[in-house]
């Protein structure tokens, strides 16, 4: 008979393939919370007095980040708020925004909803209707980062916490490696370095939690969660790599951890060897930090004017 490793409860909700550990609902929630808080301490992601802005989509990962960081808020270690970006994806984002708001309300944190429409003048649906050459994730990622950075500054937040999980992170590592994008590889990590004061530091508290466990956490905690898949994610390179990693993890359950560990070991060497210290400038159009005269977001915006 399977029993919880911590308390002996026969009602277990997870049997971890990577470690063999078995946990009941209560112990899974507790041990996951402890693991994430320990990762935050060990990697110095958060310091006392930080104002942390959670990029809250309403999906399982960001909802979990907000729930766990709320522990630090309750203990008055940090100030916490949430921002939801409405990209303008008809039939999909509306539910996410509503569910995000429920989560912020539940714990009583300040919640701001901002949209592509108000910040860049177009919804993602509009952009995609006119676009032939790029996939949605390219635009979406660039604009989301651009908007988040502005909102963080407006709100006086010094950290942006995102819901990136172990699966997301190993996907990024593998994608950039396979594409030979060594420059991009040097920027992957649990905490962004801001060598320019206009950039807010980004942290990924769930970087060592497998995607399956973030989902299980949200459901076990009974958090309102938006579980639909983005209609634009479909056939992206990321989706293919994600499928491959999940497939191979069935027979090699520790593969994502070893990919991550190996990468973190080799990263200092990569940085030393390949990271360009590009002088940071200020974008002529928007005033955001940029590696050229015009930032990526504004170069896209110019295409439509």
């Amino acid at each position, binding site marked *: 008979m*399977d029993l919880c490793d911590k308390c002996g409860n026969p009602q*277990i909700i997870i049997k971890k393939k990577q470690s063999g550990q078995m946990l009941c609902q209560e112990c899974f929630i507790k041990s996951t919370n402890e693991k994430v808080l320990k990762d935050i301490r060990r990697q110095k992601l958060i310091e006392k007095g930080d104002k942390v802005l959670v990029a809250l989509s309403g999906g399982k990962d960001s909802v979990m980040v907000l729930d766990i960081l709320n522990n630090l808020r309750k203990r008055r270690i940090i100030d916490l708020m949430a921002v939801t970006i409405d990209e303008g994806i008809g039939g999909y984002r509306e539910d996410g925004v509503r569910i995000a708001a429920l989560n912020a309300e539940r714990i009583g944190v300040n919640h701001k909803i901002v949209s592509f429409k108000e910040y860049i003048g177009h919804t993602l649906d509009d952009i995609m209707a006119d676009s032939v050459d790029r996939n949605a994730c390219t635009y979406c990622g660039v604009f989301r980062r651009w908007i988040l950075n502005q909102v963080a500054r407006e709100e006086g937040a010094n950290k942006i916490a995102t819901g990136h999980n172990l699966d997301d992170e190993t996907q990024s590592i593998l994608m950039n490696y396979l594409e030979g994008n060594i420059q991009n590889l040097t920027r992957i990590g649990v905490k962004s370095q801001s060598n320019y004061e206009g950039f807010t530091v980004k942290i990924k508290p769930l970087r060592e939690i497998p995607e399956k466990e973030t*989902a299980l956490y949200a459901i076990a905690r009974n958090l309102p969660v938006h579980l639909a898949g983005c209609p634009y*994610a479909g056939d992206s390179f990321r989706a293919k790599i994600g*499928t491959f990693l999940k497939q191979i993890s069935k027979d090699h359950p520790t593969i994502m951890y070893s990919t991550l560990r190996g990468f973190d070991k080799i990263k200092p060497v990569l940085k030393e060897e390949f990271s360009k210290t590009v002088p940071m400038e200020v974008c002529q159009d928007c005033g955001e930090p940029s590696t050229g005269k015009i930032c990526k977001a504004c170069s896209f915006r110019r295409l439509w004017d």
Partner: protein
Amino acid sequence: MEVTVIIGEDEKKLDVDEGKTVRNLLQMIEIPVETVVVKKNKAIIIEEEPLEDGDIIEVIRVIYGG
């Protein structure tokens, strides 16, 4: 024996053989086990959980493109 399977808005009754588990059921309806969380009679369970006649199984899709 018969179990009720709920997936999103969809609810159906399925005939399964005695001694089958949640994993067998998911294989039967062709849903990859690594993309779902499953509840039996409202409680979260693991894929090795045996099925009994009259169980209500809720399959929650949590991972897309998996």
